């Protein structure tokens, strides 16, 4: 019998860390997903001058869990004439890459799954998988509304990825690094030491693109329910829909986390730096996104693309070039 200690010693420390990080992130995403459902319903309630959920548990805190049980308990219906494999692959494909997106995010000084100098690149690369999932969902379900939703999702995500990338690049230029830990470390504790002060335009562009990338109102065109009934997830019920739903919230958390790291100083904060500052900033951004949804009407699809190609893209280009010049001149 081989020596257990030797066997354990043979496992690289990096791998152990990664596995532990993944488990931790699953818990993090699950809990925050549930919390966000509750926050969304409460904020929506108060925006609409009603109390929101309050029956199930104190302040309705158990409501999202009950919602989840309802979704899990529902029958999984595969529509006739659909591509069964793609139909069920799509929700998994939209949800599973989320874990990878969280790995390089530094929640505090040492609380990071993988401290790599290509962290930003990793996130941007895997964020693209979500489009594929929406596309497959729309295509595989044999529904015309779904197909229209998929078409919208692809056009929208591809368009908005470009200014998003360019605005993020401006920060990389400025910091000279793609490592999220390093970008955070270069910012100070107080708000005037954060990147948002130097790069307000980049933050503005990033935030608009982030709302569009996560398909949130007023840019929720792939699922625009008054036009496309439910868009790309028209035929999904039960947990198939649940996974898309969870992925949407997880994606919101990702974009807000990245915004926190890049523009708001991450875990840095006045008095005592730590993960709590990270979470506070992240949730402030999340509430702003939720607030958008319950206030604004939906834009039209051609207006959405015009906004991107005619305004956001040129602006982000100008911002990037200006940053590059500034870095060359002053650094």
């Amino acid at each position, binding site marked *: 019998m081989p020596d257990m200690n030797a066997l354990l010693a043979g496992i690289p420390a990096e791998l152990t860390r990664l596995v532990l990080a993944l488990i931790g992130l699953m818990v993090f995403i699950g809990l925050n997903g549930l919390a966000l459902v509750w926050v969304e319903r409460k904020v929506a309630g108060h925006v609409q001058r009603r109390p929101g959920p309050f029956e199930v548990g104190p302040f309705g805190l158990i409501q999202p869990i009950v919602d989840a049980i309802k979704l899990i308990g529902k029958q999984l219906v595969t529509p006739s004439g659909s591509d069964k494999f793609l139909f069920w692959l799509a929700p998994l494909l939209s949800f599973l890459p989320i874990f990878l997106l969280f790995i390089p995010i530094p929640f505090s000084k040492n609380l990071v799954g993988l401290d790599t100098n290509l962290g930003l690149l990793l996130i941007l690369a895997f964020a693209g998988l979500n489009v594929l999932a929406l596309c497959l969902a729309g295509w595989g379900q044999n529904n015309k509304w779904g197909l229209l939703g998929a078409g919208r999702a692809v056009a929208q995500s591809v368009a908005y990825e470009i200014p998003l990338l360019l605005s993020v690049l401006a920060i990389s230029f400025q910091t000279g690094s793609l490592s999220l830990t390093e970008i955070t470390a270069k910012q100070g504790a107080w708000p005037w030491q954060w990147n948002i002060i130097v790069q307000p335009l980049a933050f503005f562009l990033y935030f608009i693109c982030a709302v569009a990338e996560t398909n949130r109102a007023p840019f929720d065109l792939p699922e625009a329910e*008054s036009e496309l009934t439910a868009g790309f997830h028209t035929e999904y019920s039960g947990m198939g829909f649940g996974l898309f739903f969870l992925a949407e919230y997880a994606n919101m958390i990702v974009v807000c986390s990245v915004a926190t790291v890049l523009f708001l100083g991450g875990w840095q904060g006045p008095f005592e730096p730590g993960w709590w500052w990270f979470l506070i900033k992240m949730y402030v951004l999340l509430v702003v996104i939720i607030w958008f949804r319950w206030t604004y009407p939906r*834009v039209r699809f051609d207006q959405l693309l015009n906004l991107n190609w005619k305004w956001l893209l040129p602006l982000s280009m100008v911002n990037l070039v200006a940053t590059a010049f500034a870095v060359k001149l002053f650094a």
Partner: protein
Amino acid sequence: MSHCEATELTGDTYTRRFDTGPDADTLIVNMGPQHPSTHGVLRVIVELDGEYILRAEPVLGYVHRMHEKMGEVKSFTQYLPNMGRVDYLHAMAWNWAYVGAVEKLGGVEVPERAEYLRVIATELNRISSHLVWWGAYLLDLGAFTPIMYAFDDREIILDLLQIITGSRLTYCYFRFGGVTADVTPAFVSGLTEFIARFKSRLPMYTDLVTNNVILRKRCEEIGVIDVDMARRYGATGPVLRGSGVAYDTRRAEPYGIYDRFDYEIPTFPEGDAMARYMVRMREMEESVKIIEQALARMPEGEYLNAKAPKPAWKPGVGEAYFAVEGARGKIGAYVVSDGTKTPYRVKLRAPSYCNLSLFAELAQGVILADAVSIMGSLDLVIPEIDR
């Protein structure tokens, strides 16, 4: 997916008729009868080229309830409750149209106080109808919150109307020769309170919604109806006034006591969805003005003519047409009597029916989202269309 390869018959009569000579690149979809933006069971068959609509054809009849036929079977009085169910949003106007026609037919006098009560109830109901339209239209455009604000106000109106009519939606308040009940002190004080509150709410609606840039981009220059087109299809109500024609039945063919009040007929010349939107928003203000005047001048007296017809009443041979201004346009009731207890024929003119017929032409060549905006701006009530 493609409809042109199908060898066996698919779809129903309408779909197949629509399907003749299809282009392989277009998509034929059913918007409705179960679709979030058709508000009820309207079905529109659309041929899409990408996001653009090539053709659109409304299919009616999903809530056909034979209201006109029922008129030939029931007695004059028994038919009254039907009127609250033709257009559930502006039931009072339908009450008035039918009762007005029968009163004209039988020469029934209406007491002065009842006339004022009719005006107050109808105008209150007009506000609640416009509020539902406003909320639902914003819902069509993807804004979830305004409908909650609108229902907040509408709830007060429903409470008030419940005091005098006993019901909250499908009112049967009018009687031949008056109304069913007089106002109570609670109603009067509640109404005064509501008017004060509503006047402060309207500017809030303007700030929150009407001036929003996204809303304006979704409404302005969308679904432009010129005067000629509106006339060709017989459009009435806010749809016609949104094209700059100041035609309002209350002013053009005064009925009841509408000639005694000071109010404006709001018109907007642009003819787009925003113009129709603005007409309705202004109309709510004008209705408030009418209610205030009516409340101040209402005389004491009977609310129902003492010689009002009994249930088995026979009006004598003849025919009568009576038109009123509903929230959606000109409502007409044509009643023919052959001297028996039941009408020989009842014909109802529903404004939504004419306004809907504009849709097919308006939707041609627009983007799908605009078609939703156009349909919402026409303010359709489907049960009224099918009757």
